[in-house]
Structures are given as structure tokens and as C-alpha cells.
């Protein structure tokens, strides 16, 4: 039994596959490990000590980044932007998707197709006219300006995702809610939104990642240090004449940890959103 040729062959085959997969796993994780390791070195040792685990762990780098490096402000700003943009997108896109799916008004389908078409057309360099517009509206260097811009960025995809979801939802519950005297807005709030929770989860995660990681609009629209989010702050720090690498690495780690944590917690939804074809399938809706 043990010397069954087929079994041995299979064993070696899967061992080889595991070795291949493990090499890729290590190449994914090692740079991240190196980032954390470098964030715990001191300025005196970081350039000369090649060891994997530093002898002394300098947690003070995190304190320096948080206070002197202004990361407390950047972090708070990133939180403010992410939470308000995501809440804005959820409300605005679910109202619109509900109407596109369930309510009737002239020009409904036309409007919906414009939203879909906008998603299919890549618009590189759209930051130029957006910057011009924000200047005209005096929204440069304001939180509101950046938040509105970012709501727009996530809007089309969220509307499309929710509309497809509402289209598949049976209308019995809505009908009985209508019998009970609920008006449109009550149906949206009490029936449609709770039922759409799985789709909303995908939207919340996808947009949170997007806003937290956004860089170019934050750079063009926010030049005031007190309004900058983390990504922008990291680049400011990175662009300094004398880069303090341990503190920079601490800043990177602080920026990466929340997003990796959210990813681990919500992994199921992210993979579901991606693989259900809703995000990837945009270019192949037929």
C-alpha cells in the first residue's frame, strides 16, 4: 500500500505545488515583514544591522511618527474622509439604485445608462478638469470638496451593484409594506436597505479601501498639512531632504495595519464582490 506508485507520485506532485505556493506566500509577506522590522530599528542601527529581528525594539519610532511626524492628524483625517465618503456613497447610491430598480419616472433608463457608460470609459487625467472645477468652486483645501469628489468616484460602481441586487430581490415584502401604509422612503429605509445588506457590505469594503488608499486627488486638492490624509502625509514625509527611515517605516506600518485588518475581517465579502463578476465583469456585462 505504502509503496503504491500512484500515491507516491501524487504526494510529490502536491508537495511541489505547495513549495511553489509557499515561495509566492513568502514573497508576499517578506516585504511587509521587512517594513515592520525596519520600523523597530533605531537610526543608528538601521543602516548597518542586517539582522532579521532587531536586538532592541524601538517602539518609540511609532510615538515619534504619531506626534512629531504629524501622523495623528493624518490618521484622523483619513478616518474622517473614509467614514464620511462611505456613508455618503451608501445613502446616495442606494437611493438612486432603489429608484432605478423600483420607481418610475421619465428618462430613468437613459440616466441609468449614463452611469453605466461612465464606468466603461477610462478617463485618465480626469484630475486636471476636477482640479480646475474645485478651484472655481473654492473647494480646494476644504474637507467638503475632497469628500464630494470621492463620493463621485465610488458612485457609479455602487449604483450598478445595488441596482443589480434590487432587481433580483422579490417584491412581495415591498408590496406588503405598501399595504401597511409605508411610503417610498419608508420602504427604502425599512425594507430595501436591510435586505441589501450583503451588497452594501461589498460596497462599504470596496469604497473604504478605495478612499483610504487614494492619493492623487488628496495631493491636488489638499495642500494644507492639517487636512491631509495618510497617503499624502507619507509622501510628504518621504520627500523630506533627510528621510528618517525608521519613523517612515513606522508611518507605513500604521497606514497598512488598518487596511490589512479590515481585509482579514471582511475577506469573504471582498472575494465575493470580486469573483461574483460584479467588479471584474464590468467590461463584460453581456
Amino acid at each position, binding site marked *: 500500500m505504502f509503496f503504491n506508485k500512484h500515491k507516491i507520485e501524487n504526494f510529490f506532485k502536491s508537495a511541489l505545488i505547495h513549495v511553489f505556493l509557499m515561495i509566492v506566500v513568502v514573497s508576499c509577506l517578506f516585504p511587509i515583514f*521587512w517594513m515592520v522590522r525596519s520600523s523597530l530599528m533605531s537610526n543608528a542601527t538601521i543602516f548597518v544591522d542586517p539582522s532579521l529581528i532587531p536586538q532592541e525594539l524601538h517602539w518609540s519610532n511609532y510615538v515619534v511618527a504619531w506626534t512629531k511626524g504629524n501622523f495623528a492628524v493624518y490618521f484622523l483625517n483619513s478616518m474622517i474622509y473614509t467614514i464620511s465618503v462611505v456613508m455618503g456613497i451608501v445613502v446616495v447610491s442606494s437611493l438612486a439604485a432603489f429608484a432605478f430598480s423600483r420607481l418610475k*419616472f421619465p428618462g430613468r433608463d437613459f440616466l441609468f445608462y449614463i452611469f453605466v457608460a461612465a464606468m466603461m470609459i477610462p478617463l485618465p487625467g480626469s484630475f486636471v478638469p476636477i482640479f480646475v472645477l474645485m478651484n472655481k468652486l473654492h473647494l480646494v483645501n476644504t474637507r467638503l470638496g475632497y469628500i464630494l469628489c470621492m463620493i463621485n468616484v465610488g458612485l457609479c460602481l455602487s449604483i450598478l451593484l445595488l441596482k443589480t441586487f434590487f432587481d433580483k430581490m422579490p417584491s412581495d415584502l415591498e408590496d406588503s409594506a405598501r399595504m401597511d401604509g409605508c411610503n417610498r422612503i419608508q420602504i427604502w429605509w425599512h425594507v430595501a436597505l436591510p435586505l441589501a445588506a450583503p451588497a452594501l457590505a461589498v460596497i462599504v469594503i470596496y469604497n473604504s479601501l478605495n478612499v483610504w488608499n487614494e492619493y492623487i486627488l488628496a495631493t491636488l486638492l489638499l495642500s494644507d498639512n492639517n487636512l491631509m490624509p495618510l497617503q499624502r502625509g507619507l509622501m510628504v514625509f518621504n520627500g523630506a531632504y533627510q528621510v528618517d527611515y525608521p519613523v517612515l517605516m513606522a508611518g507605513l506600518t500604521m497606514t497598512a495595519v488598518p487596511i490589512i485588518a479590515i481585509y482579514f475581517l471582511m475577506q469573504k465579502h471582498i472575494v465575493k464582490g470580486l469573483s461574483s463578476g460584479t467588479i471584474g465583469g464590468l467590461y463584460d456585462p453581456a
Partner: protein
Amino acid sequence: MFSKAVPRHNQAISFDAFKNFLFVLPAVGIFSIFYIYPFFDLFNLSLHQWQGIGPKTFVGLQNFQELWGDKVWWSSMGHAGYITLIALTFQNALAFALAVACDREIRMKRFYTLIFFIPPVLSEVIVGILWNWILNAGTQNGQPIGLFNHLLVQVGLPNLVHNWLSDPASALTCIAVVHAWKGFGWGFIMLLAGLQTIDRQLYEVAKVDGAGSWTTFWNVTVPMMVPVIMVVVILTILGSMQVFVLILSLVNQGLVYHTEVPVTRILSSMSVTNQFGYACAQAVVFGIILVVVSFALKSLSNRMKQA
């Protein structure tokens, strides 16, 4: 009697329709201001000469004429093409191999999937700064301080130690490899999802017919995967051609011509030389190229589906 009833009825309907329209009003409002208006303004500005402030001069197609002869612009297009080529071949082949490996009955499948998608959730700024640190070319006491150069010395290849990110011969390849490192997880997840929709019975039939695993792969797996592969190819092209934040953060010695891509050109036309009209002309041309390429590929994939 009839003529009186109709207007009232119509009024009720139109008021109802108006109330329905209120649901989409916030979305339409934000979208019109922050998408539709800038979209048309992009075309409008591309026909003007403008420094961002002061008066605009209408110059017709002069910006486009200038762009036609702009060597730096077209070489930046070539650089983006090179990054895209590596993403299409190396990155997607890796993603496909990993997806095929994870599609079979294998232990720790969920662990692998979990890890492979970590680089894609990190921001381009984080990835760029982190890899800049790893590829750092600085030296201290004659020893390279960057991890990569340090490892080269350790494995006995000190001749290879050099400034990977500023040497024109290696800079673009480094950018492309880091881009692939960040991006292969996307392709992996989408391809794996595609593989899992293939009916297992097809594999059984192929086995009964005596097909080896290699034959099965080429004659069952690959043809079934063509639609998914095409989606991944289109998304890879659109994503890689437009990469630029990664380059800004990875190559921190400032932009040099050999690492310029179209979007960094647009950005510097706008914010370095203040040629807003020219920046918009570049954006229009680049946008049209991307639209043409992605629609051509899409119609190609539709034709392949029918065949």
C-alpha cells in the same frame, strides 16, 4: 367631463414621477458636477492655451499638433506599454498558475487565497515607498544599506550591486516587477473564481477518454476560461497603462525621463509647467487610445465566444 379628468390624472402622475425622481437627484447632482462637467471641460480645455489662471486663448488643435511631435510623450507611452507587457505576460501567467494550483483539492487553499490578496489591498504609496526602501542604493561603511543589494553581496554577486531605480537599464523593469507584485492577486482571485465555475464532469470525461493532465489543461481548462481571461487582460491593460502613483512613490529621486508614463506627463504638464490646455490634450489622446484598445479587445472576446 372626460377632458376635465385627464389633466388632473396627468398631474397626479407627473407629481408622482417627480417624487420618484427626487431619489436619484443627489446621485445625478453629484455626478453632473463632478463627472459630466469635468468630462466636457476636459475637451474644452484641450483646445485652449491656459496657465491655470488668467485668460484662456482658443488655439484650436494646436495642442494636439504639438503633442504629435512630442517625443517625451510618445516614449512615455512606450514605457507604460513595457510595464503593461510584463503585467500581461509574467504577472498574469503567475496568477493563472497559482489559480490552477489552488483550484485542485489542496490543503490550506483558504490560507493561500488570503495571503495572495494582501498586496492588492495595500496602497500604491505604501508599496512604492516600501520597495524603494528595499531597493535602496545607499551605502554605509562600504556596505549597501538596501536589503536587495545587501542580499546580492551575501550570495556573492557584488558586481550586480547598483542603483536599481535610477539606472535607465533597470528602472522600468523594477517598476514593472513591483507593479506585478502588487497586482497578481487580482488576477489570481478572478481566474480562480472562473476556474471554479468549470463543470467538474468535463474533467472526468477527459480522464475517461484517456487525456493526460497537460492535454486536459489545454483542451478543457483554457478554452473554458477564455471569457474570464479576456476580462483579466482588459483590466490588466487599463490598470497598467494608467499606473503612476506607484512610480511617484517608488522612484523618489524625482521624475526622470526614462521612468515617465503618460499620466505622470499629464501631471507635470499641469503642475510643473502650468500648461493646463496641453495637459488636457494629453489626457484626451490617452483616454481615446485606452477606449479604442479596450473596445477592440472586448469585441474580439465576443467574437471568440461565438466561435
